[in-house]
């Protein structure tokens, strides 16, 4: 029956080639869009976590639920050894809140102390004016905060905080750089100084509020689980998904919108296929009836139509994959760049202004399976329709 099904396809070459082309084009569009989408999401996850938060953080238990400087910990030799046994990049930070003043202007801000040489975020690459900090007495300020305070590089700002022990901490620090991340919270309310200065300000006595982890490895989650099990009981691991739920929601929302579009595209192909199968089936009604008369069951006739649909889907999918492969590889090597105002908009949503494609067999296999499932579903209808009629009516024995 495969032979009959295969040859039936080529009775109307033009129609078959058009149908195969439509399937191939849809496979190309689906694979291309899914590859760009997945590539962009992966890149965005890296991009967004790299800006400041990291892929995961270690906190004292309870800190993440209620950020307070009193919930801090020491990175002792044991913890340091544990962190160094992983393949992650890591750095210490002190995060707290305080007041920032210049002249007659005072604003509340989030104050962070970092190890400039070990810092793993991309903050050093986001300096728009001045330079990155490299010693104590220096501070970086978000560009919006700088604008509000009316400060420039070289100005000295006063920072006033409440320390871990309840005492007041104050320092006069020189602005060495003004950064612009595109993330409103950082640009409007973040001040970054050295870990030493923050330690003095908050009276930390060598303690930190967080250890930031970063890695690009694909099995990050697995390795993170292994690290979590080995952490001292008073510490906890928080992943970027928990720290940045808005990014995750944004990706999910974006993906849901895209899926609706994919579904529409698949439905267009499916109905095109249905049309082809209906036409090719109904112009052979008598022939199919003859097959039934000489001994095929209704199910076997339906299976024949199914096989024709299978061949159409197979040819369309293979052609689509062969066209998609070089296209996806090109966009892996040459990502789409988003520029101008659109890039700023993307950055404000934590989305990377770069859209690389992801070459993944899962996407190719997924699209192929979906097209096949729809091809089989679409073949069911003409099969049922053509075998539902009375055999004697279809045969029209006398004429």
């Amino acid at each position, binding site marked *: 029956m495969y032979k009959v099904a295969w*040859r039936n396809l080529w009775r109307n070459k033009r129609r078959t080639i058009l149908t195969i082309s439509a399937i191939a084009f849809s496979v190309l569009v689906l694979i291309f869009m899914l590859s760009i989408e997945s590539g962009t999401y992966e890149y965005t996850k890296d991009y967004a976590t790299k800006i400041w938060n990291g892929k995961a953080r270690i906190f004292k238990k309870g800190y993440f639920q209620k950020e307070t400087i009193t919930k801090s910990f020491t990175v002792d030799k044991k913890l340091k050894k544990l962190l160094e046994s992983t393949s992650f990049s890591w750095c210490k930070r002190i995060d707290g809140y305080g007041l920032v003043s210049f002249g007659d202007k005072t604003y509340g801000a989030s104050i962070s102390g970092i190890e400039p040489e070990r810092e793993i975020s991309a903050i050093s690459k986001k300096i728009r004016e001045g330079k990155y900090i490299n010693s104590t007495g220096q501070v970086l300020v978000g560009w919006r905060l700088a604008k509000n305070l009316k400060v420039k590089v070289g100005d000295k700002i006063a920072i006033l905080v409440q320390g871990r022990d309840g005492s007041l901490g104050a320092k006069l620090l020189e602005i060495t750089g003004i950064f612009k991340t595109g993330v409103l919270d950082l640009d409007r309310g973040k001040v970054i100084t050295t870990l030493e200065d923050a330690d003095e300000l908050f009276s930390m006595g060598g303690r930190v509020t967080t250890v930031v982890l970063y890695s690009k490895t694909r099995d990050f989650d697995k390795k993170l689980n292994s690290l979590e099990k080995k952490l001292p009981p008073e510490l906890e691991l928080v992943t970027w998904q928990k720290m940045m739920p808005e990014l995750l929601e944004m990706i999910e929302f974006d993906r849901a919108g895209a899926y609706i579009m994919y579904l529409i595209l698949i439905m267009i192909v499916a109905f095109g296929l249905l049309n082809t199968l209906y036409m090719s089936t109904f112009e052979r009604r008598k*022939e199919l009836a003859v097959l*039934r*008369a*000489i*001994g095929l069951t*209704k199910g076997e006739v339906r299976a024949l139509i199914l096989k024709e649909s299978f061949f159409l889907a197979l040819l369309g999918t293979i052609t689509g994959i062969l066209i998609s492969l070089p296209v996806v590889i090109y966009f892996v090597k040459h990502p789409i760049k988003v520029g101008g105002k659109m890039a700023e908009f993307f950055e404000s949503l934590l989305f990377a202004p770069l859209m690389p494609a992801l070459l993944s067999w899962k996407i190719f296999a997924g699209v192929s399976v979906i097209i096949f499932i729809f091809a089989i579903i679409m073949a069911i209808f003409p099969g049922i329709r053509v075998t539902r009629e009375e*055999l004697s009516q279809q045969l029209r*024995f006398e*004429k």
Partner: protein
Amino acid sequence: MEIVKTENLSKYYTDGTIVKAVDGVNLTLKKGEFTALVGPSGSGKTTLLNLIGGIDKPSEGKVFIDGQEISLMPEKKLAKFRLHKLGFVFQSFNLIPVLTAYENVELILLFQGVPKNERRERVMRIFKELGIEELADRTPSKMSGGQQQRVAIARAIVHTPSLVLADEPTANLDSENAIAIVELMKKMSEEKGITFLIATHDSRVFERTRRIIKIIDGKIHED
């Protein structure tokens, strides 16, 4: 030995009024009989063939083929019954256009699950018997009407069925081919003991059959 037996076989259609296409037919065909079913257009010849071939369900009565009642058989079982016990020859040949003559004939044996070597042997044997070996690799579009009908006969008898039902097999053929086709069917009936029931109003056909059943208004008028 009875190959076909019908008991009070009737088929009614309702179209405002009740139309009796076949009306209480009692008929028996013995093994190897070569019979013509004659009658004017609309007399019920095709309906009777359809009922005997299990293509249509009777409104009343019973059909027995080779001793098995087929009127109540479920669709799937009936399809397999037709595959093994019956052969069909149609007026417009009805070969599968995408298959060669060989493949068209082989199809029946393929559906029956006959092994490849045996299929080849049986198909070539029947081609030889019918003198159509040279048509084996041709598709229907490259054959004349007479050639297509010879291939259709090969398809109908390759599995040596109990009964071959032929509906106006010569209607689309010229005189020379029509006579040749009837003679061919007759020869196969005699040599293989296959029962033939041929619906026709072609005198070239019924002049060559041993038995003629005349049907008028769905009833057997003469036998």
